[in-house]
């Protein structure tokens, strides 16, 4: 049974006004694209139901339904302009910041529709963190990049030194920076900056982490480090990654969703989708025949 995630609700929202849904039941009528055996087997952390998105008159997502499984890595792949980044940003309402953006449909976190009234957006984005395409550390020291979020959220400063180490260790960066925490974050390499951004995202204790092309600006060695980091992170977090790089999706994810022209074409375990895709168009895309 779902329990209302109180932290998501704005102060004025009464708990009894929000009734969490059974997320598994949402996919009973979606078995054509969402394999029933997966829905039965894995715990669902987030559920997207018939999500459509417009930028002005431009219809970029059409009726997407997709489960996001707990403590797993889900990759979103598809050709440019297929709507995968829009989809990712809909998962923590980042698109709300775009005036011409309009959304229809539902996105559930722990059974609560994050698009319903009474949702505290700051809490939502705290719970669903995001790492962007290009490393974007704050123009401050390595240490302050980590402590910035916790301080804003009112943490007792006595805990900060322990937290700095803990999040840098989790982001596989501690060994490389522990003796220069006061240096500017810009003194780090691109790969290190991206891991710092991941540590910064972890510092506000999210439950889901969204990665938007996290390695597109990195060399293969730095990419491998981030990929291994994502593999380790899934033990504690639920991860969704958007990537242009199909090989990366294959390497790093447990489940893959293939989008084309704003529609979800196929969703399956990464093993099955990359070896025996069900739809012809998926086969053509992953084997490099189009896109």
């Amino acid at each position, binding site marked *: 049974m779902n329990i209302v995630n109180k932290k998501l609700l704005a102060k004025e929202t009464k708990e009894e006004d929000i009734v969490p849904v059974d997320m598994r039941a949402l996919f009973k009528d979606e078995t054509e694209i969402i394999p029933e055996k997966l829905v039965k087997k894995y715990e669902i952390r987030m559920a997207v139901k018939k999500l459509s998105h417009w930028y002005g008159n431009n219809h970029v997502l059409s009726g997407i339904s997709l489960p996001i499984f707990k403590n797993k890595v889900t990759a979103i792949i598809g050709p440019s302009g297929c709507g995968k980044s829009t989809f990712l940003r809909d998962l923590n309402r980042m698109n709300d910041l775009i005036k011409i953006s309009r959304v229809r449909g539902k996105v559930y976190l722990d059974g609560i529709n994050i698009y319903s009234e009474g949702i505290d957006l700051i809490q939502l984005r705290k719970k669903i963190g995001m790492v962007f395409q290009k490393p974007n550390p704050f123009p401050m020291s390595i240490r302050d990049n980590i402590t910035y979020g916790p301080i804003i959220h009112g943490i007792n400063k006595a805990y900060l030194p322990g937290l700095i180490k803990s999040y840098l260790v989790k982001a596989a960066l501690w060994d490389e920076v522990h003796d220069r925490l006061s240096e500017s974050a810009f003194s780090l390499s691109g790969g290190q900056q991206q891991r710092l951004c991941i540590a910064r995202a972890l510092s506000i204790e999210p439950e889901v982490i969204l990665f938007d092309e996290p390695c597109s600006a990195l060399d293969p060695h730095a990419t*491998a480090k981030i990929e291994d980091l994502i593999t*380790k992170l899934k033990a504690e977090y639920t991860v969704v990654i958007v990537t242009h790089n199909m*090989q990366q999706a294959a390497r*790093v994810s447990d489940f893959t969703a293939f989008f084309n022209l704003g529609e979800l074409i196929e969703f399956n375990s990464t093993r099955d989708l*990359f*070896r025996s895709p069900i739809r012809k168009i998926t086969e053509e895309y992953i084997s490099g025949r189009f896109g």
Partner: protein
Amino acid sequence: MNETRKSFGGTIRFKELMDELNSYLGKLTDLVIEMIEKGHKALIEDDEGLFKKIEENLCKVHELSYQVEDSVQSSLALHQPFASDLRYILSTLKITNEIHRSAHDAVHIANSTTYVDIALNKELIKRVVELAKRASLMFEKSIDAFRHRKELDITEWKKLDDRVDSLHAKLIDDIIAKIQKEPSWARAGMSLVLATRYIERIADHACNIVEESIFVVTSKRVKIE
């Protein structure tokens, strides 16, 4: 980090997949070695019941072979391995076939007991079993070398193979001589000829596995002839 992981490059996920592949390969190998040993036992003890038990294991062999194949497919499709990792994966697919065929050879060896009266042919059976033990040891050593990517001495393996071939040839000569002397023993003799042929094949499979092991380690193709 365990031995398997140390010897592979790539990401954590790839290493996990290699652990999985090696685990299936290990289970398959253990099962087939057990079948080969039971095949020898069936020869010594004239135990037809053992033949049935060995034959029953073929289903498990098929299943484990598919699991190896499944892991190979995943590692190639998802991780695009290079160099020695790529060679290891491709060669795993090839040696799985050798292991699979050795399992069938073990079944045939055990089946040979049907027409041979062990008690009346002790001396010949003893030599067949000795040949079988050699082949079995070669088989075990070859797979161990493959799984641990050991460097192997091709000259030593050529000698081992030659020794099995000469013991095999001598046994065939003696069995034929006995058939010529006692024509009524022809059926039993033929069974023994076949048994020795299957045993010699197991040694051949071991040599093929060694060739793949050398390819994985050195990227050079060599032939044990």
